[in-house]
């Protein structure tokens, strides 16, 4: 049986009177692709910030990669990777400088950075571009490099916050090939997306509405439950149900 890499019990985060996350309970299994869906403002970012050790819960329990949300946030940060569409790499540094910077942040030795970056650049087929500034790299490629950098330190789990927003259809699919490669290396992937076809690439999906998780299952099971052939339709039904009750 796979072990849980994330365990969350009744996790709650309040800002004043506002309950941003309301009693979240779920687990993420080691080696799975876990899709974290929800409308804008549903509370996804708040939850991700807690899971990454960047903010502390108001109440409830949370363990990420075996470390506690209240007392071991620094250890959580060392054992995860993170990238998003908005923040990934520094535009005014070269590919190689970004690798060295992030490798250093995650505590890799000089030799480890050198070896792994060589391996990574070879795999992506961009060895000759390593001295190119990130700002001169096409956006789709930048996202692929950013993802590879986010897992350079071989984290147990990587958080991807809308990693493919605005990326062209071909590169978007190549990005998912990289995700599957990471899974093969034993890295767990936690991902948010607004592309519903990408939601179907996940092993399991959770759906957040107004700070609560209202559904959690495999894409196939969710479609069956809502009697629909499209994930988009499931998403709309769930998000709309939240509008009525709020």
């Amino acid at each position, binding site marked *: 049986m796979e072990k849980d890499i994330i365990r969350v019990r009744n996790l709650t985060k309040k800002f004043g009177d506002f309950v941003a996350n309301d009693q979240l309970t779920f687990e993420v299994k080691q080696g799975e692709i876990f899709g974290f869906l*929800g*409308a*804008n*403002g549903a509370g996804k970012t708040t939850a991700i910030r807690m899971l990454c050790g960047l903010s502390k819960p108001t109440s409830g329990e949370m363990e990420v990669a075996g470390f506690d949300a209240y007392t071991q946030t620094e250890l959580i940060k060392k054992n995860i990777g993170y990238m998003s*569409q908005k923040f990934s790499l520094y535009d005014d540094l070269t590919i190689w400088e970004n690798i060295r910077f992030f490798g250093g942040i995650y505590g890799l030795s000089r030799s480890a950075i050198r070896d792994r970056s060589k391996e990574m650049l070879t795999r992506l087929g961009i060895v000759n571009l390593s001295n190119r500034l990130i700002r*001169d790299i*096409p*956006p*789709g490629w930048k996202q692929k490099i950013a993802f590879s950098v986010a897992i350079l330190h071989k984290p147990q789990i990587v958080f991807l916050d*809308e990693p493919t*927003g*605005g*990326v*062209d*259809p*071909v*590169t978007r*699919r190549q990005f*998912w090939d990289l995700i*599957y490669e990471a899974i093969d290396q034993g890295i767990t992937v936690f991902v948010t997306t*607004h592309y*519903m*076809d990408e*939601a*179907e*690439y996940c092993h399991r999906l959770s759906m957040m509405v107004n700070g609560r998780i209202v559904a959690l299952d495999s*894409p*196939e099971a969710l479609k069956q439950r809502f009697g629909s052939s499209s*994930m*988009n339709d499931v*998403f*709309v039904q769930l*998000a*709309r149900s939240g509008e009525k009750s709020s």
Partner: protein
Amino acid sequence: MTAISIQNLHKSFASNRAVNEVSLNINRGELFGLIGPDGAGKTSLMRLIASLLLPDSGSVHVFGFDTRRDYRSIRKQLGYMPGRFSLYPDLTVEENLHFWATVFGTTIDRHYHLIEQIYKPLEPFKKRKAGQLSGGMKQKLALSCALIHSPSLLLLDEPTTGVDAVSRMEFWDMLQGLKGKDMTLLVSTPYMDEADLCDRIALMQQGKILSAGNPHHLRTQFIGRLWEVKTPQIHPLKQRLNALFGCEVAHLFGQCLHWTCQADMSIDKVEQVLKQFHIPIDSLREIEPGIEDCFIQIARS
């Protein structure tokens, strides 16, 4: 009648050819979609149309006016909603609207009917600072401000980027509501599924227009037959197919594989090809290509 006429347009930033030999006509009253990924040149093209950038070569005419010479005449008739929220965050909702009305020499009341549907949900918050609104409300306010002088041409730069599926649907409903009001709408988006909501579209990548026309017409240009294959072993099947044909003929679409075959390949032959891999197939059917299928095919050729 033509609203926007673009001829041999070029615009570079240093070595980056943001807009590369673009020619395009957009008709009056139509809802036109510029569809392409980040970096395709959509924003630059829109800013050239808005007379905010000058062409390196080529020309843009809006309602017959040249964007170089007659930019004043163009700007009076133009509503522009940039991709980034660009209202004043320290002014209230009402103050922003009043400001934009005044800039264009009009009042909120004169064209209120145009924005009524969009602005109504904001009315209870009209004393709130714009910077404190939620994402969806900011967007409604930005659209209201872009419409307040009743422009003949409305440019919307990626209004739905980073927006969830439900809010995206609502935004397109708002746009459909503006159609038929003697307004030309130009919308850019990276979401291929929004193509079908437009009268006509242009697919853009790397500064060039790959193809333009109505979405239905673009579909008929698809080369070959497209098969949707469902299998529990989707990745192995994709790899085998691509290896067999020596190029990327199969692409993932959710839990299905879209496989492009030559037009003369019969279903028997298709089944025969699949059988040799000894991979269980749940279902197989021929489908109409979507705009994303078309984009992938054109972008790769």
